[in-house]
């Protein structure tokens, strides 16, 4: 999948869960959780939304690959590209 589409889906999911965060100044290489106030419940909502929008089932063991924006975008782009999504 085109990384831009993955990035947009991720930012959409994050901003629907945490609308008050500053997405303009988000550092792509820093942990998302340091920049956006997300608890495990919020994070699960992001995972569910990504599943609904991109059709990717992200197992819990892969959660750490979504720690930063750039990590998450390349993970999502690669996962969707392999066609392993539902």
């Amino acid at each position, binding site marked *: 999948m085109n990384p831009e589409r993955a990035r947009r889906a991720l930012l959409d999911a994050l901003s629907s869960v945490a609308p008050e965060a500053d997405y303009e100044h988000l550092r792509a290489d820093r942990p998302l959780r340091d920049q956006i*106030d997300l608890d495990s*419940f919020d994070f*699960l909502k992001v*995972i569910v939304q990504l599943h609904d929008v991109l059709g990717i089932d*992200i197992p819990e063991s892969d959660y750490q690959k979504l720690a930063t924006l750039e990590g998450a975008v390349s993970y999502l782009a690669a996962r969707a590209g392999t066609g392993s999504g539902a």
Partner: protein
Amino acid sequence: MIEFRMPSLGADMEYGTLVEWNVKPGQKVKRGDVVAIVETQKGAVEVEIWDDGIVDQLVTEPGTKLPVGGVLAVLRGENEAPLAPYTPAPAQAARRERISPAARKRAAELGLDLERIAPSGADGVISLADVERAAVTAPRAPEDKSAAMRQAIGAAMARSKREIPHYYLGTTIDASAALDWLERSNRERPVAQRVLFAAVLLRAVALSLKDFQELNGFWSEGRFQPAAAVHLGVGIALRGGGLIAPAIRDAGRKSLTEIMTALSDLIQRARSGALRSSELTDATVTVTNLGEQGVDMVYGVIYPPQVSLVGFGRVAARPWAVDGRIEVRRTVHASLSADHRASVGHRGALFLGALERLLQEPEKLA
């Protein structure tokens, strides 16, 4: 006649503003029905009624700010004749702002506090023009609200620290078995039905409390009153600041899946302002999970009139001694803050021990 009063939705509430009525005069109601929406410092709450009867008169108009205990409506029994017109006590009536309906609606849209709007006309009634003028100068309610919430939490916590002789215990628990078990069972679940470890911890606390009734209940009227069921208060951070601790009712009898469902529902309604009054008043013990924000441990302040609070820190991989060797295990720090009037440290320690043992046998938590 039964007076239906502004409920106290927690130790930190002083006032509530009636937003709307869900009932009309002449309507039959039964205990547990949601009859009104009340705006509190912690958001809008669906207020349930505690008696059966017929709504006789709605004493308070929407938009009115009332102190806790102020009369909202009066009910009559099913076989009772309609009551004489009800006159609220003068102290209550004095809080009613005189305002035109259009102005009231506009002030609500703008989030303005009616107490801060001065009427300009000789009749003393706040007009639409007064509201528009106030909108330019008055501070917006959201700023007011978070300050009000901080103040309310501060008052409740000051009362807790003044009145409750806290004792504190803590222990680090090897959570590997419980986490491995949870991750295995989550692999079998659709994404939207995954269970969070937070729900496992809540279930473990609810089950462990069954043998420690001196930790579950209220301190009131100078003595401890144990509760028959575990209504588990859950500390929920609100976006934009603030904290609320509504209850998962009868958590001791809910399965893990049911606890997870209840938790999701509670978090979403807490954040959108649609909690029920009973959820804010029923908690018999509270759990705080500040580990979600990255701290290793938390020792909380008991929420009166409860007598204990369980805190969990962050789950992380840490060195752990096993059979004389160091292994990396995922551990979590659990703490108990408890009221020394209701329990002793020895029992509190046994409770944390029971909690730790239960987390080593996660299949018992299903």
